[in-house]
């Protein structure tokens, strides 16, 4: 059996999608399947690291270190894409967007491992995007730590990908930069959500697609689970320093200082743990349950090793 690493796998998906989309004509997407191979990670799949305290930067580092350190994932010269939640024109204290200190620390750790290029990117919802990047604090945090910080605003920033296992969607789009990356780190914030009850790691991947409305018109939770079958981050770092309890996803609403950062490879396990922060179980959140059923990961935390640090 041939094993593909993340970039090869995503490149192949994009290539297949591009080939179908363009009727078999030669395309850039098809060429992306020929990207050079890179090494694979690895942290233990069934382990979550949960760091608790009050310093968001320190917690982020502690969580990653507890998994084995960023140098297990990022190698010299790598192209790393970090995908926080930067959807909304809200300052960090609202809890609608990822804490900029978390983003900054992720970038710093990647830089220390010799990453060649680090890109912080999201499909920003509010406008103007430059203002969103500024108000959320993520532009400053990312840049100061050594990353490029970009808002994807054009359809040309996305490539089509096929979702072979998809039940609600058989194809969609993905940020091209994610498909090109050696390492993809998902950095969501934990918050409530009007349509999906909670938004954690897998829901944050909705910011990788171009047409969000198409999911809202469809079975949203199933779309999230479908997408998680093909876009699998190398690492999910869930910001739960301050969680938004009401008024999500944009807020403002009631927030709670939880003081946690959760890191893991299994996106379902991370989300399952995240649901517990809201005194819910993974079973209460349809897309977590659906993703578990589709084999994306483990939602039963009794089967997951949790390292509390």
């Amino acid at each position, binding site marked *: 059996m041939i094993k593909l690493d993340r970039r090869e796998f995503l490149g192949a998906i994009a290539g297949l999608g591009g080939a179908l989309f363009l009727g078999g004509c030669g395309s850039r997407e098809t060429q992306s399947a020929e990207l050079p191979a890179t090494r694979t990670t690895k942290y233990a799949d069934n382990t979550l690291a949960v760091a608790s305290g009050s310093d968001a930067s320190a917690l982020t580092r502690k969580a990653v270190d507890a998994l084995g350190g960023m140098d297990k994932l990022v190698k010299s010269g790598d192209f790393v894409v970090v995908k926080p939640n930067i959807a909304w024109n809200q300052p960090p204290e609202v809890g609608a967007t990822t804490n900029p200190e978390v983003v900054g620390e992720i970038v710093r750790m990647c830089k220390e491992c010799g990453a060649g290029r680090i890109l912080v990117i999201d499909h920003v919802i509010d406008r*103007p995007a430059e203002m969103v990047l500024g108000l959320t604090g993520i532009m400053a945090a990312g840049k100061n730590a050594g990353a490029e910080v970009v808002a994807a605003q054009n359809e040309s920033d996305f490539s089509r990908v096929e979702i072979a296992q998809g039940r609600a969607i058989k194809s969609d789009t993905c940020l091209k930069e994610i498909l090109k990356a050696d390492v993809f780190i998902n950095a969501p914030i934990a918050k409530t*959500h*009007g349509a999906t009850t909670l938004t954690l790691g897998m829901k944050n991947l909705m910011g990788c697609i171009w047409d969000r*409305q198409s999911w809202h018109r469809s079975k949203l939770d199933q779309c999230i689970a479908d997408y998680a079958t093909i876009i699998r981050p190398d690492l999910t770092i869930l910001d739960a320093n301050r969680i938004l309890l009401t008024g999500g*996803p944009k807020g403002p*609403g009631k927030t709670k200082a939880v003081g946690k950062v959760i890191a893991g490879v299994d996106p379902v396990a991370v989300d399952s743990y995240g649901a517990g922060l809201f005194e819910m179980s993974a079973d209460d959140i349809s897309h977590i349950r659906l993703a578990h059923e589709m084999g994306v990961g483990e939602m039963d935390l009794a089967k997951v090793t949790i390292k509390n640090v």
Partner: protein
Amino acid sequence: MNMKCRMIALGMLIVAALTGLGAASMAAPAPAVQKLLPGNNDVAGFKIVAKTLTYGKGVDVSKVYNGGYELYTKNGVVDVVKQMYQRESEYAEVTVHTMKSTKAALDFVNYWAKQRETKSAAIAGIGTGFSVTKPSVMSYYAMGKYFVTVSAYYPAEKSVKETAAFATAVKKRIKA
């Protein structure tokens, strides 16, 4: 790319161009709610930021609120339009919602007042509403069957007054 593929691509481009021309010639008029948005300098020095106009009706209210849209539609929002304004480094965002009734507009303001742990009150010349300053400045108003919010992204000392000025500009357009 071989000749056959080039011909297919050229054909697709021609069809797309013709379709686009046809669509442009039959462009729908701007929705009524869009005409209620303040214009350039309705509030001293504030100009419309290009490409920040967003409109949604029904499920497309999600274009403005993403996954939070159902809260709005369930509470009577029929359609919504949002636009950003700028004066040097100061930004304000005005969102106008058409509600299914005057009562729905008033109820929704009171819903938000409860969420923000404050109370709404009658505001002369505007309607009913309230403002909060934390975590950022935001004002909520019911004006007849419209529910209007104004968010300001600059210091409260100056911006609270100006959110009311934006609301007044909307009110004038409703009356017109």
